[in-house]
């Protein structure tokens, strides 16, 4: 039951330095690197040309980008500590959460499906929800954890749940309606680098330096099962639109696709051994599941047997 993937397109010199941040909408592939700009390549066009550049986005570089499901808004976090909001319809800056203070600096970010709210995780483990609809952005929720560096956060599609992963292996799930912590999941012990709710909101996928992809049931907090196969730190995890597949990327340059039905790895991609910091499925067009990865280059992959091969 393995899937066949072809390298559809590679953009080698998208950025001068490593690409840390990746956000994908139907229109744009947004990438951030050590440079101060965010680049927008076309997602639809088979040659993926550069269509826009946000200049002076983050002067010391950008390490995280998140996009809304609707594709109208994106947010980015920079090494200098600020968060910026981008209007993808008019391709312009749309506000900023400035660097609050040294300890409260934002690291991990996520955006709600409609783009109206964002979730941030900071150096000191604080998890906050912000209303992005008008400036100055209001802080709607402020969850306290154990003062450990937040490496990743995610919001469920319906916006009711938030999750965070921390440097000490801590994973927390919050109920945004009650403002309470739903689950504190321990046992991973090593940095949690990627966290993602399934499209249905019932499952939570978690990855990190423990090399395993752990799948939790959100309501019970139980670990349902594990995917094993990576042999290095796993940097990112993402779901396909249907929730049938997971994509993960690792420090040793491997990108893997996992089937939730067969509970196996169906594809391993990656010729180089340079770290792949982010991997994401593309919004679905046709039957195939296409994806994009970012590390030293931006690489698009196409499912060979699917109808979307065009």
């Amino acid at each position, binding site marked *: 039951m393995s899937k066949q993937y072809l390298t559809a397109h590679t953009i080698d010199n998208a950025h001068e*330095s*490593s690409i*840390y941040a990746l956000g994908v909408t139907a229109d744009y592939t947004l990438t951030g690197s*050590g440079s*101060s700009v965010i680049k927008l390549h076309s997602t639809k066009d088979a040659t993926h040309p550069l269509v826009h550049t946000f200049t002076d986005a983050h*002067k*010391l*570089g950008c*390490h995280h980008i998140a996009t809304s499901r609707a594709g109208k808004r994106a947010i980015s976090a920079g*090494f*200098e*500590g600020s968060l910026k909001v981008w209007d993808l319809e008019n391709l312009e800056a749309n506000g900023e959460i400035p660097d609050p203070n*040294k*300890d409260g600096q934002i690291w991990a970010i996520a955006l709600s499906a409609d783009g109206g709210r964002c979730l941030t995780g900071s*150096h000191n483990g604080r998890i906050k929800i912000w209303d992005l609809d008008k400036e100055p952005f209001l802080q709607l929720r402020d969850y306290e954890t154990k003062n450990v*560096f937040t*490496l990743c956060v995610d919001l469920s599609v319906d916006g009711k749940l938030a999750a965070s992963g921390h*440097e000490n292996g801590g994973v927390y799930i919050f109920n945004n309606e009650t403002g309470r912590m739903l689950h504190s999941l321990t046992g991973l012990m*090593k*940095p949690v680098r990627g966290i993602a709710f399934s499209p249905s909101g019932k499952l939570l996928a978690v990855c990190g*330096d423990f*090399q395993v992809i752990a799948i939790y049931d959100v309501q019970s907090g139980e670990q349902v099962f594990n995917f094993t196969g990576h*042999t*290095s*730190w796993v940097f990112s995890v993402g779901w396909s639109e249907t929730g049938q597949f997971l994509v993960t990327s690792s*420090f*040793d340059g491997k990108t893997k696709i996992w089937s939730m039905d067969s509970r196996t790895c169906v594809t391993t991609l990656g010729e180089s*051994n340079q*770290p792949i*910091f982010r991997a994401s499925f593309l919004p679905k067009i046709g039957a195939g599941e296409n994806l994009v990865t970012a590390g030293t280059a931006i690489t698009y992959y196409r499912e060979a047997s699917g109808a979307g091969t065009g």
Partner: protein
Amino acid sequence: MSSNPEDQYDLELSHVIDLYQNQSPIKDDGSEYFGWSDEDTVTATEDTSSIAQIDESQFLDLTTPIVSPITNEVNGITPTDVLNDGITRPIQLSDFPKPPTSRRYASTTQNIPEIPHTAASTTPSISTDVDVTTTVDGEIPELDLAGRLHKIFLENRVEETVTVIWAGSDNSTRPSAWVLQKIDEVFAAWLDVIDSKGKLVVKLRGGERRMLRASRSQQWVWRNMVYPGPCARDNRRFGAFVRLLELVREAIESDKIYTKRDIYYKDVALFGSQQTVDSLVDDVSSALGVPRRSLHITAAAKGLVCGDLSIFKTDGSIIDCNIEGEGVLIPSSADIEKVEIRDTDTVLIIEKEGKGYPDIATREFSHYLYLTKNHTEQYLDFYCLVDYDPHGLDIYTMYKNGSLMSRAAGMFYEQMAVPGLRHLGVRFCDILEYCSGSVVSGVGEGDGEEPRSKRVRYSASSLPPQGLLPMTAHDRAKAVSMLQRDHDVVGGGVEYTEDLRKLLFVGYKAEIQVLGEQLVRYLDEKLGGQRIGLAS
């Protein structure tokens, strides 16, 4: 003469300003310059409680008329001089802060033989500016001098003397935190004094006084730091004292080690001479009863050199550095006549555990080697092996460029840099190879290294291996400030900024020890590979 209170405040003001402006020429000899003599500060005492009873007659009481015989005796300066200074040059508020001019310092710096070449004498004003700026911008709020002085100038003085006594019995095990606390006590007292317009006396107990005649009472040599002092040189002396404490504080907090020479270079204009720094350091260390290393100050060079070369010193002695397995302490550049390099073509600078940032002697020596040809008339190749963390990368930059501080000051930059220095490791790619735990073959950054498949790998279960550590909040702040600095000063694009971002993003740092026992092979391959790279 003048009993008008306003005149007195004029006088005080001028003293304090002198602290930063150095109106009078500075003499080379620190003790003479500060007027330190044992005679005027000896206190005989049976127990320490009586130390607190300060003989007020030692100090000029500013509430009494200025002309007093006591002043004459104590300071050896005619009161008229002091007074004239205040009267003939009354300080207007609009005058302050008065920018220092280079003229005032020229004589000082030219008199100092240790300063390499000529850069110092041509640019002293810059260093002075930096000094004033850093002092004012420092953490210590009392240095908002203009505002404070304004208050002193306008308001009536409350004559109140705060006394801080440092008379610690010798105890080498006191932690640095204790030293910090003592320093902060002085700063706090100084703040209080400035607020209450009183007087601060810091009494430093020196060594035991050797008496010729038998005496049952213990005799100590005391050094007194007075603020505001009766004359300009007291304030300069106090200023130097406070600056030293500030530097000690900085050294302890950032875990750096300064040599006495480093301290002197931090503020050439204020200290005036190396000797001033030396005696101040000795005074502070003996008063606190801690060894110099507790103040994070070392007497001399801490860098070691080993290799086929000889150092000819100015005193005629020759140091052979070719002793297997043993490093030779690098002497100060002032003591080096020349260096003879024999069968050597590569210099490897290594950040050794516990040594931290390089001192000036080591950097000057590196620079000297950089300009020197070996016996086959070839210049040497320079490589640097540092920890993979923000401090390691900062140390590499310091060797390569000179420190940014000194570059900003336009001083010593040329004399200490090794522009041809190359960063050998530890690199991000080494972490990939040594620490990610998997079988990864032949990773390099395309610099023509041979595959290392023969090496033992860490097993996947033993993460993180020795030498790999999580980035602390301090490391993160340091990395961001270095990114910021390079962005501001150099305009970005410095070679190691990518490493800094990867440190931040991946969240792990690595010490040289990550290479473990494979260090020798690592160097072999890296240097071997680099040479091939050079030849092609």
